[in-house]
């Protein structure tokens, strides 16, 4: 069972905002690019 939305406050909110404000690394960009290519290769809709 899961909740449907993530609500952050306090230190968790600060940690998230720091994460959100940084740029993606080249490694992250590359993995996202590969993920998108994988999705396109598998999507049947």
């Amino acid at each position: 069972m899961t909740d449907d939305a993530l609500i952050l406050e306090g230190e968790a909110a600060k940690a998230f905002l720091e994460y959100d404000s940084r740029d993606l690394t080249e490694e992250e960009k590359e993995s996202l690019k590969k993920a998108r290519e994988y999705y396109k290769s598998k999507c049947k809709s």
Partner: protein
Amino acid sequence: MKMISVPWISLRQMVRIRLALTSLQKEKLSNNRANKLAVVYVVRYNKNMAAYFTVSMSSINVEHLDRKEKVEHATPIRYPAMLLGQVGVDKKHRGKGIGADICNFCMGLAQEVGERIACRYIILQTSIGKTSLYEKMGFSISPKPPVNNKIWMYRKFV
């Protein structure tokens, strides 16, 4: 060969492939699909059903805090996110990289959706001690205290 099918298969089919769904999970899957609250995807491995996962739109809601002053009425900021909800992999098919494939598929889907409807994150909840796969896939653990042994993880793609 792994194939991911666009929804939907019946719950009866899921029971047949013994994904160890509880009755509550089956009911939730059925209700979510019927009410368009989540979409269910199926993973086939050599034409056999091996796993399923659900996706839906969600958000990360954050209260901005002033570093120097206490803000009594903080305005929450909403970051659109795709929720990777329930994930189940048949025990016979574990260890074959299906979990990683599901993550890659969802990250690709979220980026595609983000071209049409705002989507900045992919988020999920998982049990404490079951984060290694998602950490390998680039997800970060939220320091938000766990609830019912569940923690949140997120990954951005912009």
